[in-house]
């Protein structure tokens, strides 16, 4: 840490400010070393690794199916996607098909999870700006979603639900009605939420024209998901590299348009998340309507032993492309698992995007990128 500080050549009138790793607005244990000229930052250098748990190395010592619980911990706000990406990579490696019903269930739970994650994302952003109430609204709705998912798989946070070859449990009786009931109450609540925060003048003033990331930079830094779409790049894995049952559904890909300012500012990224929740509601309704009957788990050999080869399974998680690059050497354990997660790139852009921002706007930048520490550090 000290060397990092010393390395930066500092002239007398510059100030160095440390933020994190224990800071409520850094969304987990991330540290920023800010070099500032008064209130204006020259740059904020992110220091990560405070939550590096060595998940990739642990994968090398575990049989293929046993690694699924660890993937939950890669993204604990949206663990379904983390399960899904890994399951998909291993399925590609094995060359097996997943039953239709399982694919539909995967889509339903993933989209529920996307709502849950975005609720925290937008709520926490509002909280960082100073509005505490929206966060509590978000948490309240998230609890309802947690109940639904708990009824399905018994866990509130670390689901371990999407397994290699299918899913672990079928819908219990009556859950489908509960999900519909939730969606029916959720949609009007979205409007309430909009009135509360989305068009709130203070939020708009704090976010509009702040931390603008243009499309070229976003692509170069490998931004994904709502952050990329907030910059106006029309790319969504669900539509463009379709996987699972997504080709069956109609939905819009929400893009930033410079709603209240410049294209690619913090407000655009915020709005994209809010709109994506509405799209998720649409997808869940379609999936519930068209839910096919059948098996929930494909035919798997007792011991998973994929032949030599490499597969890359990526899903559009709440934070964008969450990919697993799995390399098999023909044994029952993966030779290497590389996890590619959206927050990693989103954090790496902070140094670039923070140039010339006010220090108080750094939290807006971080919150609008919706980063989460375990995805960066794994």
């Amino acid at each position, binding site marked *: 840490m000290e060397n990092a500080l010393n390395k930066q050549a500092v002239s007398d009138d510059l100030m160095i400010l440390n933020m994190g790793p224990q800071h409520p607005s850094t969304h987990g244990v991330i540290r920023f070393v800010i070099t500032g000229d008064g209130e204006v930052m020259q740059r904020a250098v992110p220091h990560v690794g*405070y*939550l590096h748990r060595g998940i990739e*190395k642990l994968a090398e010592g575990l049989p293929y199916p046993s690694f699924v619980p660890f993937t939950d*911990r890669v993204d604990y706000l949206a663990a379904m996607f983390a399960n899904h990406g890994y399951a998909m990579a291993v399925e590609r490696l094995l060359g097996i098909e997943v039953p239709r019903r399982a694919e539909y269930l995967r889509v339903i739970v993933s989209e529920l999870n996307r709502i849950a994650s975005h609720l925290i994302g937008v709520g926490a952003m509002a909280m960082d700006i100073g509005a505490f109430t929206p966060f509590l609204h978000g948490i309240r709705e*998230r609890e309802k979603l947690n109940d639904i998912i708990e009824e399905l798989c018994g866990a*509130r*946070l*670390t689901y371990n639900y999407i397994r290699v070859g299918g899913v672990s449990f079928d819908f219990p009786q009556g859950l489908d009605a509960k999900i519909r009931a939730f969606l029916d109450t959720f949609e009007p609540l979205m409007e309430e939420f909009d009135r509360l925060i989305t068009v709130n003048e203070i939020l708009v003033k704090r976010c509009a024209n702040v931390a603008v990331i243009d499309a070229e930079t976003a692509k170069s830094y490998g931004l994904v998901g709502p952050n990329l779409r907030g910059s106006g790049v029309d790319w969504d894995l669900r539509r463009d590299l379709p996987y699972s049952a997504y080709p069956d559904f109609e939905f819009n890909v929400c893009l930033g348009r410079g709603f209240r300012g410049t294209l690619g500012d913090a407000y655009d990224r915020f709005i994209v998340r809010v709109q994506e929740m509405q799209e998720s509601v649409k997808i869940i309704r379609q999936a519930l309507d068209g839910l096919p009957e059948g098996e929930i788990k494909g035919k798997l050999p007792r011991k998973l032993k994929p032949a030599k080869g490499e597969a890359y399974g990526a899903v559009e998680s709440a934070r964008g492309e969450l990919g697993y690059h799995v390399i098999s050497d023909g044994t029952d354990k993966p030779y290497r698992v590389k996890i590619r997660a959206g927050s990693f790139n989103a954090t790496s852009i902070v140094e670039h995007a923070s140039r010339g921002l006010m220090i108080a706007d750094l939290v807006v930048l971080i919150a609008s990128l919706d980063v989460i520490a375990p995805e960066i550090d794994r």
Partner: protein
Amino acid sequence: MVEEMNSPRVIEAGLEGGPGQGAVLWGKASYLLNLSRKHSLWYLLFATACCGIEMMQTGGPRTDLDRFGMVFRASPRQSDLMLVAGTITYKMADRVKLLYDQMAEPKYVIAMGSCASCGGLFQKSYSVLKGVDLIVPVDLYLPGCPPRPEALNDAMMKMQDIILSEDWRRKMTEKTEPRPQMGRGGILKRA
């Protein structure tokens, strides 16, 4: 509160008068002090990993820790209780110790989740601290991966019991003295 008074631990304390009559609470000074400490337990918002999300939800509308007089503080200097919620890595370990040292006495630590208690799921990992008791003394271990909000709630109430049952002055002196034997000898040497 009346139940607490009837518990065998608490002697010589009582409540006289009923609702609407201007009640008088009497007891030993240490008991009364503990009672007030117990009902204003401020915890350090220290969420490192998944357990931190459950901690947030515990503070949220459903479980609502506020009704126990517990509010989160973002600064260690204002908090009485450190909830270590989540995995602690070696890179983070120094900072945890630093945060603990900054808290004012008397202070308490809850190790929330299996990661904080013993390394949990990541026991075989090269970079994860195998239990936060190797660097700071822990008062309460809360198992689970992650523990449910109800469990955390229960742990908080147990913490209140601990606070109520001890002499606050003794607690202070005990902890300000160096405790080299804490954990299993894994105390951090400060340069």
